[in-house]
C-alpha cells in the first residue's frame, strides 16, 4: 500500500523539476545489558540484537522539498515497519519575507553535545546510531538582510510528535540571528503551553584560525523536574513527583580547536536545571535496590512511590540531560581513509562516564560505513553504572543514488 502511494506521488510530480536522492541504509546493532542493574527490567536479557533497514527519498523542486523515510526494524523477537515524512514543506517569497509552510527541521543553537536553544526540534544530541530527525509541523515568516535574519515561527505538533511536544503542541518562536565578523549572535523569544515564556541567547566566536568558542543560555518561565525523596522522607509521607517549577535555566559553554592535519577537539560544559538532581538519582537507586533486595524493609507508601518512579523514568525526554551538570569532550580526526572520533560524556557529581567510539569510512563515491561503540560506566552509585544497557555496538552502512 505504501509502495503504491509513493509510486503515485512520484507519478504526480513533474519529474524534470525534481532534484532527487534515494538513500539506502542498513544498521545492525548489539546491546549488552547488565540484567541485575537496579534500573533494568525484571525480564532483562543479557544481550539483544537489533537490525534496521531504512530507505530515504528526498525530492525538491518549485520551492518545495520533501523527505520520506521508511524503515523495518527487528528488535529481539519483535518486528515493526514504519514510513514517515521527515519533511514536507513549500516556501514562497512575499513582500520581502520568506514564507514556509509544512513539516520542516528547525534545529537551532550552537552546542554540539546539547543545545538549550533547540526548543522546537528537540534533536537528541547523544543519539548513538545515525537516524535522521523528524521535522516539526510549522508555518514561518522570515526576513533576511545581508548578515541578519529574523524568523517568526508557529509550530503545531498535532499528533506527529506524540512523544516529544505532546504537552506543548502549539509554540511561537521569534528567532534573531546576526552573523558578524568572526562572531554569530542569536536571540530567541519563545512561548508554549508547557514552558510559558522562554528567552534565550547564543554566540559562536571564531577566535583565530584554529580556535572557536560558543555559548547558549535560556531562561524559561515554567519547567518540570522529577524529584525523588529519600527513604526517610517517603516514610514521612513525601511522594515521588514530577514537580512544576518556575524560572529554569539551561546554559552551555564550549570551545573547539582544529588543526590543519585534521584533528578537532570539542569541550563543553552544560547546566540543565530541569534534569533530576544527583540526590534524586541516589534516592531512586536506594528505593529500587531496597525493593529488589529487601522489600519487607520498604517504608510505608513505597509501593505507589515505585510505581510513580517507574512511570516518570519512562517519560524522561531523550533529548534532555540526565543530570544537571554535564561535561562533554570530543576528539575527532578527519583522515584520508578513516574518520575516528572519541566522545566522553561525564557526570561530574557522581563520576559517571559514557564513552563513545566512532569510526567512519567512505567506500568509493557513494557508500559510507560507520562503526560505533558506547560503554557506560562509573562508581557503584553513579547513574550510568546502574542503567540496564551497559554497552552498545552498531554498524551503519549507507549508500545513495541521485538523479
Amino acid at each position, binding site marked *: 500500500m505504501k509502495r503504491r502511494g509513493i509510486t503515485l506521488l512520484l507519478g504526480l510530480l513533474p519529474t524534470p523539476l525534481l532534484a532527487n536522492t534515494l538513500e539506502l541504509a542498513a544498521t545492525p546493532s548489539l546491546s549488552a545489558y547488565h540484567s541485575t542493574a537496579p534500573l533494568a527490567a525484571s525480564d532483562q536479557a543479557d544481550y539483544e540484537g537489533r537490525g534496521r533497514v531504512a530507505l530515504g527519498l528526498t525530492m525538491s523542486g518549485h520551492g518545495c522539498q520533501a523527505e520520506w523515510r521508511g524503515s523495518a526494524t527487528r528488535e529481539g523477537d519483535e518486528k515493526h515497519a514504519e514510513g514517515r515524512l521527515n519533511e514536507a514543506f513549500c516556501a514562497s517569497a512575499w513582500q520581502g519575507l520568506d514564507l514556509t509552510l509544512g513539516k520542516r527541521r528547525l534545529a537551532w543553537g550552537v552546542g554540539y553535545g546539547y543545545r538549550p536553544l533547540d526548543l522546537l526540534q528537540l534533536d537528541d544530541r547523544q543519539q548513538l546510531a545515525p537516524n535522521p530527525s523528524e521535522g516539526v509541523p510549522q508555518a514561518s515568516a522570515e526576513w533576511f538582510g545581508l548578515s541578519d535574519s529574523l524568523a517568526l515561527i508557529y509550530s503545531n505538533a498535532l499528533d506527529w510528535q506524540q512523544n516529544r511536544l505532546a504537552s506543548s503542541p502549539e509554540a511561537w518562536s521569534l528567532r534573531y540571528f546576526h*552573523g558578524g565578523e568572526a562572531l554569530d549572535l542569536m536571540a530567541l523569544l519563545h512561548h508554549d503551553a508547557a514552558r510559558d515564556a522562554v528567552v534565550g541567547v547564543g554566540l559562536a566566536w571564531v577566535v583565530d584560525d584554529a580556535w572557536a568558542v560558543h555559548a547558549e543560555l535560556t531562561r524559561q518561565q515554567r519547567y518540570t523536574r522529577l524529584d525523588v525523596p529519600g527513604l526517610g522522607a517517603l516514610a514521612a509521607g513525601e511522594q515521588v513527583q514530577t514537580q512544576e517549577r518556575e524560572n529554569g535555566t539551561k546554559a552551555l559553554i564550549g570551545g573547539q580547536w582544529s588543526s590543519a592535519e585534521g584533528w578537532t577537539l570539542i569541550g563543553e560544559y552544560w547546566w540543565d536545571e530541569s534534569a533530576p538532581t544527583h540526590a534524586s538519582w541516589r534516592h531512586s537507586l536506594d528505593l529500587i535496590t531496597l525493593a529488589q533486595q529487601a522489600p519487607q524493609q520498604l517504608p510505608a507508601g513505597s509501593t505507589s512511590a515505585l510505581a510513580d518512579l517507574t512511570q516518570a523514568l519512562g517519560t524522561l525526554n531523550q533529548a534532555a540531560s540526565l543530570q544537571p551538570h554535564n561535561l562533554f569532550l570530543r576528539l575527532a580526526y*578527519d583522515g584520508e581513509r578513516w574518520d575516528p572520533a572519541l566522545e566522553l560524556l561525564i557526570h561530574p557529581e557522581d563520576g559517571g562516564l559514557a564513552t563513545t567510539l566512532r569510526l567512519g569510512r567512505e567506500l568509493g563515491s557513494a*557508500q559510507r560505513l560507520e562503526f560505533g561503540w558506547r560503554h557506560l560506566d562509573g562508581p557503584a552509585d553513579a547513574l550510568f553504572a546502574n542503567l540496564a544497557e551497559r554497552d552498545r555496538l552498531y554498524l551503519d552502512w549507507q549508500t545513495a543514488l541521485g538523479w
Partner: protein
Amino acid sequence: MFKHILLLLTLTLPTLAHAFDVAAALGAADAYRLPGQSMQLDSHVALYEGETLTKERDYRVYIKPGRRSLVLFQSPIEAGQKVLMVEDNFWLLMPKSRRPMRITPMQKLLGDAAAGDIATLTWSDYYDATLVDEAETREGRRCVHLSLTARYPSSTYHQIELWLDSDDLAPVAADLYVTSGKLAKQATYQLEAVEGRRQVTTTTLIDRLQNDRRTVITHSGLKEVELDDKLYNPQYLIHAAPEAP
C-alpha cells in the same frame, strides 16, 4: 649635461618600456578561471591514489563580488551539504540537522578537496603579487613567474608561486604553500576553448604532503548568475538550494 641626460634615457627607456604590470597580469590570469563577477559553475572532483580513481564528488559553486562563495554538495551521498564563505567567515550546513554551523578557517581546509580549491577562483581578490622572473620555463612553456602572498589570514594557501604563459598570461602552474610554509600542493591548469574563449577547464592538484594523491577538478557550466544577497546569509542555508535558471 645633455649627454648625461641622453645616456640616462638610453639606459632607462628600455626598462620602462618593459615594465611589467603585475596587477594587470593577475587580472588577466583570473579571467581565464572566472570571466565574470557573479558566476555559477559546476566542479567535478576526482581523487586518485597512484593511477587508481578512489572517489568522485560534484559541487555547484556560486561566486559573488565581496569574497562571497556558496558551495552546494551535489553527490548523492552528501547531497544537501553546503559551505558558505563570506570574506573571512565560514559556515557549514549538514542536511540532516539543517542547522548552519560556523566553522574555523582550519576546518574549511578539511574534506576531500579544500573548499578554497573549489570556490576561490580569483587570485587578485585574495593575494598581493610581486614579479619574480619574466622568463622562466615551466611545463615546457616560457612563463612569467609571480609570487603571491595572502592578503587575509583565512586564505586557503598562505603563499602561491604562480607561472603564467608569457604569450597570453594564461595560468600554467602554481605551487601552493600553507601557513606553516610547507608546500601543500602543486597545480597545473589546462585550458580549452569554451563558447569562443579560452578558459581553464581542468585543474590538477598533486598533493605534496601525501605524494601518491592527485586531485583533478573539472570546471563546467560556467555562466553569469546573479543570486539574491540573502542566499549568502548563513541562516538562509536551511532553505532549498537555488534552482537552475
